[in-house]
């Protein structure tokens, strides 16, 4: 380690000791920069972070003592301190000597506070790297001077660019091991520049460093690199403009988090301003409704503000009593964001289970949560070669471009314009896991041109004319469980009671509406979606709809339940054990499946997910179809 006390950047100790109040005054006004470091352990990433922490006195003696003993025990640097052990915090990481998850570290210089996200470099941790990059203003991409631009350098650069990081630092590390050779440095920079241009990185800053020896880390030029005329790494980090100040330049946007109503006289809208500025008297528009009003006050605990800027959490009151709640966006009245329900998006898949094309996922964007389906990807991007490849789905760590359709309109902006209104996550409806992150590129024309046509004869009048309560009786169960037989019995009984019904049967629908669909998982999901839409039109027409489909996946049954008004969807589980259904084998399908002549057959080589809380269960081992039908009728009456 070089003598850090000679570095002016860190000459704060004297000030702390002599005039603490002056120091605090300075510290209080520091800005904050968040950055990530990318590279593998071999590139000296952990050593660099360790040095930044050490040089800024963020490593304490007790931690250093623990580090020294750990280094000797399990370190990979011989008798030298292994800084990787400081940064890799999980037991599994220290044991395996790899970085698995993002770690956040903190340090200060005289001008700034820094949060550095140390990201794993391996391809299988792409999702963790994207996570770390999502909050960063800047990325430090490390290159080993002996190795030059590698495939992983390209991958890391691409991901940083994808997530919208504008400030890229190319830190050419281990310069001490190439004798601080300018030609080596220049060649690497030239090679990287060509690649950067190719993927759309407009500019970057290249710095020759040695994390181990300390060259060009805090001051530049190091005496070893007299040929270098740029800033040191720390000087550069201190001078880069932070993103939040750029956000303040745009039009005003604030997603509403919470409506503040302490009493009848106060109604405020709380949120974090994502873009622009706001002050009393500004005209604002509530989206998606489009209603306008004027800002009355900007309320905070410390008193009303004359003006608030992007990055601040505030509460706004308006002059007019207009409808506004969580999920709405308050925006500059004359420059509002778009509203749409169909988009092209870039998606990073983050779950072990692959994406299900057509399945409904929760999509969260700012404070809005809607149900969304993803179409088959237009293409997948190979993160190493950056080639566009054909893809049927996206698997863990894969990145692709696909269309997304939401069940309700979203207030949004392209991700390039706003991280807040363009970045989203997808959440699995059953496991509640975050399965993907995405960036909206643009809305599709067709969603802007198709509007819902209001009709005068409402669904209530349709039902009233038929003197009944519309329902969807959704039968689910294995093939051969008795769904069609029982549904048929139920419909006959309802007909005798003068109820207006319609039975949608699996095989029949596949002869017409769905004859283009096969039995792959994606096709099965689409099959159910279309049936759901048809059933929805029929209940709107006032009918009692009976459907008999295997519908093996919980998520799709849930998707249909959400399409239909509350209480009108009745899930009926025809509970027949696989052995019994296979024994019956009415259509001879189980035999074919067992012989391998029929692929993706539910119960054999494709799963059936039984309902967790079905509205009605019938057991066909104990009940005859007629008894089962009577049981169902009793449960659903009176239907008026």
């Amino acid at each position: 380690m070089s003598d850090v006390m000679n570095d002016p950047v860190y000459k704060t100790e004297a000030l702390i000791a002599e005039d603490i109040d002056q120091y605090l005054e300075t510290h209080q006004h520091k800005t904050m920069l968040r950055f990530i470091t990318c590279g593998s352990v071999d590139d000296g990433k952990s050593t660099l972070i360790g040095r930044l922490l050490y040089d800024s006195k963020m490593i304490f003696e007790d931690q250093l003592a623990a580090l020294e003993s750990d280094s000797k025990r399990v370190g990979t640097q011989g008798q030298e301190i292994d800084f990787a052990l400081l940064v890799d915090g999980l037991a599994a990481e220290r044991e395996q000597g790899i970085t698995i998850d993002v770690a956040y570290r903190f340090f200060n210089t005289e001008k700034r506070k820094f949060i550095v996200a140390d990201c794993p470099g391996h391809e299988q941790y792409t999702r963790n790297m994207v996570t770390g990059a999502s909050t960063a203003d800047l990325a430090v991409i490390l290159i080993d001077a002996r190795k030059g631009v590698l495939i992983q350098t390209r991958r890391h650069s691409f991901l940083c660019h994808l997530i919208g990081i504008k400030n890229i630092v190319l830190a050419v590390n281990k310069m001490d091991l190439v004798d601080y050779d300018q030609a080596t440095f220049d060649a690497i920079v030239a090679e990287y520049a060509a690649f950067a241009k190719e993927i759309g990185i407009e500019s970057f800053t290249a710095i020759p460093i040695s994390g181990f020896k300390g060259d060009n880390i805090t001051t530049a030029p190091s005496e070893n690199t007299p040929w270098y005329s740029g800033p040191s790494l720390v000087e550069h980090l201190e001078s880069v403009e932070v993103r939040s100040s750029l956000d303040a330049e745009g039009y005003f946007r604030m997603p509403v988090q919470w409506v503040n109503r302490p009493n009848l006289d106060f109604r405020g809208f709380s949120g974090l301003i994502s873009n622009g500025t706001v002050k009393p008297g500004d005209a604002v528009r509530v989206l998606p409704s489009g209603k306008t009003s004027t800002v009355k006050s900007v309320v905070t605990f410390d008193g009303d503000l004359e003006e608030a800027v992007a990055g601040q959490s505030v509460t706004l009151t308006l002059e007019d009593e207009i409808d506004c709640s969580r999920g709405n966006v308050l925006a500059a009245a004359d420059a509002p964001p778009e509203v749409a329900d169909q988009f092209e998006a870039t998606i990073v898949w983050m779950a072990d289970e692959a994406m299900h094309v057509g399945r409904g996922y929760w999509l969260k964007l700012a404070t809005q949560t809607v149900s969304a389906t993803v179409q088959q990807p237009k293409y997948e991007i190979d993160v190493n070669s950056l080639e566009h490849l054909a893809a049927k789905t996206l698997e863990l760590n894969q990145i692709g471009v696909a269309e997304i359709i939401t069940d309700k309109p979203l207030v949004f902006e392209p991700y390039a314009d706003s991280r807040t209104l363009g970045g989203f996550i997808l959440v699995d409806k059953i496991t509640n896991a975050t399965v993907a992150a995405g960036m909206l590129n643009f809305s599709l024309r067709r969603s802007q041109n198709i509007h819902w046509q209001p009709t005068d004869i409402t669904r209530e009048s349709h039902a009233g004319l038929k003197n009944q309560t519309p329902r969807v009786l959704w039968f689910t169960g294995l093939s051969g469980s008795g769904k069609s037989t029982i549904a048929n019995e139920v419909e006959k009984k309802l007909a005798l009671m003068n109820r207006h019904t319609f039975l949608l049967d699996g095989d029949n629908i596949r002869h017409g509406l769905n004859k283009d669909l096969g039995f792959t998982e994606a096709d099965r999901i689409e099959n159910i979606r279309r049936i759901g839409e048809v059933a929805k039109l029929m209940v709107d027409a006032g009918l009692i709809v009976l459907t008999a489909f295997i519908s093996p996946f919980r998520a799709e049954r849930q998707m249909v339940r959400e399409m239909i008004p509350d209480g009108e969807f009745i899930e009926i589980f025809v509970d027949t054990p696989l052995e019994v259904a296979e024994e019956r084998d009415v259509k001879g399908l189980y035999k074919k499946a067992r012989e391998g002549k029929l692929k993706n057959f539910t119960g054999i080589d494709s799963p059936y997910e039984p309902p967790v809380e079905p509205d009605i269960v019938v057991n066909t081992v104990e009940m005859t179809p007629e008894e089962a039908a009577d049981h169902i009728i009793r449960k659903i009456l009176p239907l008026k």
Partner: protein
Amino acid sequence: MTDSKTLTHIQRLEAEAIHIIREVVAEAGNPVMLYSVGKDSAVMLHLAKKAFYPSPPPFPLLHVDTTWKFRAMYDLRDKAAKDAGMDLLVYQNPEAKERGINPFDHGPLHTDMWKTEGLKQALDKWNFDAAFGGARRDEEKSRAKERIFSFRTASHGWDPKNQRPELWNLYNARKNKGESIRVFPISNWTELDVWQYIQLEQIEIVPLYFAEKRPTVERDGMLLMVDDERFPLKDGEVPMDRSIRFRTLGCYPLTGAVESEAATLSEVIQETLLTTTSERQGRAIDKDAGGAGMEKKKQEGYF
């Protein structure tokens, strides 16, 4: 403040914490704020007040008590809750109480029963599905890897290898029945940030953070304060008045003091900055179970 459109780091950290607290209130069914009376708790409570002003924070405070906190902590606890207009729930694990579990005789079992078990019991008792905590990433290396929204199974366990990706400032608060979330709004604050915020916002903290002459004994290299008559003195041990203060506050028999003359906030911050040992160094809990003490405790359900 808006003469420049660039916010200071403290302003950004405050805005981020307020955003997080509001997200939880908007999306969780039954949130609670863990309140341990320490300086981080004091900052958390202050942020909660700011997040919902002019409404009072729409959740209660929960103190998982061990009966072994410093007396000065109990005094401030009741006052702070009252000032904020919030309900204060105090929970003491009845089994630990009945068995007389204490830090002198029971070692690690004391933390396990009173704190880890007590916390789980309290969350179950009131069906809280989201609990705010004041943990920070700069405290300890497994904390550095923890998400802001940290998921716990129905049995309150933490699985570090299976954390949800957390992008931008989008938090997925959805969970299955029985699961709960621990939320850490000041994850990105450092010890210095906390101190500076306390100073800037003039937040009241327990006087034990400031140096004063207090009765102490030295044991296993730690300076312990004799806070009440339950402190069993060993043969030959005589409490001695020393000018001390505390960098963190926990159970008094487990919390080491530092000798100090720093009696004002500025002086405390000055010492903090010039010190050469980390904040948790005075805590016995981190040293259990080798290097992975905290990670292991968290997997078992510790905060």
